[in-house]
């Protein structure tokens, strides 16, 4: 463990930072103005506004937080009804002794805007739980408790969520050694007995508690679902996660900004490029740079292909679970071809780590367009074949229709985003709402379904594949822009090898960048992309050194999966399998 970078509890460590200037977002003024407007709303007058941020940001007193959240949620001119994210940040050396920031981020469909709230607290003092306003924060608060030890008063079930039962201490605190492990033995594993959600009228029969997972063929990865059955009907359900908690956020703090990229691949490993894009664009936002057009173009094409691959795997494996193996063979073939293209670009298949902060690692191969075009032509055939077997198949529809239902209101309150939200009737897509990579210049639709059941989610995913193909067709017809694939900024991108060998300047830049890394300005920022499963956001804090001070990922699966127990309660045991497939939980992203 000696190779581990041990974190000191003092911020501003490492080599003398060259960049201690604060981060100023280019549109900060607009957000400041908007923040002042929000503050004029009745009930929010007393808020402290933090100026110069990339979102309207307010500092809230612990005691007021629930009231403020309620106003933001209910006020007809604001309607911040979607809970995006809640997490902690640790500043152990801050004056005043309150070391933790609890950060809340909310979204309003009405105004298409986000807001950030911060509450300060210390180890002992609890923060009132926001659960009464946003049920979607239930697990987020548990996570903040688990990793930071922040307490929430009035939370229905405040216990560890990601780390195991025998774990001691709170891992994301700055004074926790990143490599300090606690061993769990078989006898420490907790027994879970789900609370009954439905009281069966007939109490004569015994009820059975059944464990699915953490190693179960349908749990694609590692989830544990415990259900209490009355016959075949689920009367109570509980879920346990953390079986793949790989400490992404802690690892990010112990690596340099550039080194975090491979870790992001492994979040949603079905659509790794989208994660790369999300992280790199966040850091680019912090640095105030923009990747060249050519890089953006390649990333757009690959992102859409990855989205297709993600949906193909989702549908394919879902079908295997419910007993239709053929589709899996059909759908895995084009996916394999997509990885072929990724491999041609950068040499890796599943987890390419193709992006760099400021652009791409290498240029795409010369026949990129032809290869991509071939894919765009072949995918519809395979998808069509699978669709012919499924969409009108009566057995399939009986199994999918009306099962795993979640209503629009519930979906929003639980913090759903992405295909699952769209299948419940909300036409929301980050690519439309706040376009990046040039999505605003493409013509595509947001597929929506209104039933909120498994069949709706299947249909939405299928249609999304078509829409992605539409984007791809337009992109390929436009052709690839010429130019470099990485920014020409010696503080961000390594100079080309020939120059390093032949020019003193470049040699120095190369050395500096390798030894001292990228040192973004001091500050914090948030950026979001449309991941395979919904809004994938990154919140980063820089203290001006080569290591990120905090990297927070907003995992779409996490929010969705907390509603899972509600979605399956009242249904049949067989529906669990079908539902688990359509909500597409990726353990890497869920547990990070």
């Amino acid at each position, binding site marked *: 463990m000696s190779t581990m970078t041990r974190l000191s509890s003092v911020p501003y460590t490492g080599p003398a930072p060259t960049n201690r200037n604060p981060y100023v977002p280019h549109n900060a003024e607009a957000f400041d103005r908007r923040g002042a407007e929000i503050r004029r709303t009745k009930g929010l007058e007393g808020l402290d506004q933090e100026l110069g941020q990339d979102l309207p940001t307010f500092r809230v007193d612990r005691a007021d937080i629930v009231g403020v959240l309620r106003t933001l949620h209910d006020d007809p001119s604001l309607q911040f009804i979607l809970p995006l994210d809640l997490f902690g940040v640790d500043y152990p050396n801050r004056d005043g002794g309150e070391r933790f920031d609890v950060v809340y981020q909310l979204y309003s469909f009405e105004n298409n805007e986000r807001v950030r709230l911060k509450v300060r607290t210390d180890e002992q003092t609890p923060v009132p739980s926001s659960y009464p306003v946003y049920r979607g924060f239930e697990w987020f608060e548990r996570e903040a408790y688990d990793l930071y030890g922040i307490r929430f008063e009035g939370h229905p079930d405040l216990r560890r969520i990601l780390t195991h039962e025998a774990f001691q201490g709170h891992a994301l605190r700055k004074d926790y050694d990143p490599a300090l492990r606690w061993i769990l033995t078989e006898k420490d594993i907790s027994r879970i007995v789900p609370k009954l959600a439905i009281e069966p009228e007939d109490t004569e029969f015994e009820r059975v508690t059944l464990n699915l997972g953490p190693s179960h063929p349908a749990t694609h990865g590692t989830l544990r679902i415990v259900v209490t059955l009355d016959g075949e009907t689920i009367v109570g359900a509980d879920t346990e996660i953390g079986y793949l908690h*790989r*400490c992404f956020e802690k690892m990010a703090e112990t690596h340099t900004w550039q080194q975090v990229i491979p870790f992001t691949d492994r979040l949603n490993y079905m659509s790794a490029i989208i994660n790369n894009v999300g992280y790199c664009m966040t850091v680019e936002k912090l640095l105030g740079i923009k990747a060249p057009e050519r890089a953006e173009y390649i990333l757009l094409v690959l992102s859409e292909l990855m989205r297709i691959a993600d949906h193909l795997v989702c549908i394919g494996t879902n079908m295997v679970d419910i007993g239709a193996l053929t589709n899996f063979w059909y759908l895995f073939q084009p996916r394999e071809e997509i990885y072929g293209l990724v491999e041609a670009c950068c040499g890796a298949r599943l987890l390419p780590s193709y992006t760099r902060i400021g652009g791409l690692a290498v240029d795409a191969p010369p026949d990129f367009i032809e290869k991509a075009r071939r894919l765009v032509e072949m995918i519809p055939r395979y998808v069509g074949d699978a669709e012919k077997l499924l969409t009108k198949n009566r057995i399939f529809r009986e199994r999918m229709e009306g099962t795993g239902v979640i209503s629009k209101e519930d979906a929003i309150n639980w913090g759903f985003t992405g295909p699952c939200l769209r299948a419940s009737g909300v036409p929301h897509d980050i690519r439309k709402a706040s376009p990046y990579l040039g999505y605003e210049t493409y013509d595509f639709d947001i597929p929506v379904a209104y039933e909120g059941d498994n069949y709706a989610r299947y249909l939405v995913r299928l249609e999304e594949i078509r829409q992605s193909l539409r984007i791809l067709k337009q992109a390929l017809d436009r052709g690839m822009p010429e130019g470099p694939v990485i920014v020409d900024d010696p503080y961000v991108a390594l100079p080309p090898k020939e120059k390093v060998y032949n020019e003193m300047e470049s040699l120095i830049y190369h050395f500096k960048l390798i030894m001292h890394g990228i040192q973004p300005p001091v500050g914090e920022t948030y950026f979001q992309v449309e991941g395979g499963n919904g809004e994938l956001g990154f919140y980063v804090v820089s203290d001006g050194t080569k290591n990120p001070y905090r990297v927070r990922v907003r995992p779409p699966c996490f929010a969705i999966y907390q509603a899972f127990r509600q979605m399956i309660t009242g249904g049949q045991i067989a529906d669990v399998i079908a539902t688990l497939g359509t909500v597409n939980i990726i353990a890497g992203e869920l547990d990070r």
Partner: protein
Amino acid sequence: MITLPGERKSQEPGEGSTWFTSTLDYLVNWARGNSLWPLPFGTACCAIEFMSMVSSHYDISRFGAEVVRFSPRQSDVMIVAGTIVDKMAPVMKKIYDQMPDPKYVISMGACATSGGFYRAYHVVQGIDEVLPVDIWVPGCPPTPDGLMYGILKLKEKIERGELDR
């Protein structure tokens, strides 16, 4: 008629007879090596590449290991594909214990082998902390052909009698 191991050696040249001799151990190992039933203990990204290996493009059935069983009672090689974290380790041990003998373990990928680049507070630094491992497949993730090679190596090892238990 299938050519069995040892057959050619034991035949009298030119006689064209259909009998052969072999040691029982050899024959048993030959049979075991050619019909591995994997139990995929897939937790993370590596499991996706495992799926690729099983599915149509790479098609592991060419090597007799396509009968994927999720029940430990019906399988003889556990392929640990993915990161094993401390919370999962006892579960993995339990499943391994439930497998009937003879049983083998393939550790797929950097994470299962050594914790990979997760030198962190919640990740098992190599599954040999918990289980005996027969084959290590390097890579992050190993390519499907890499994993196939691992399975073939296991087959060789079994046939050579190195893993008699």
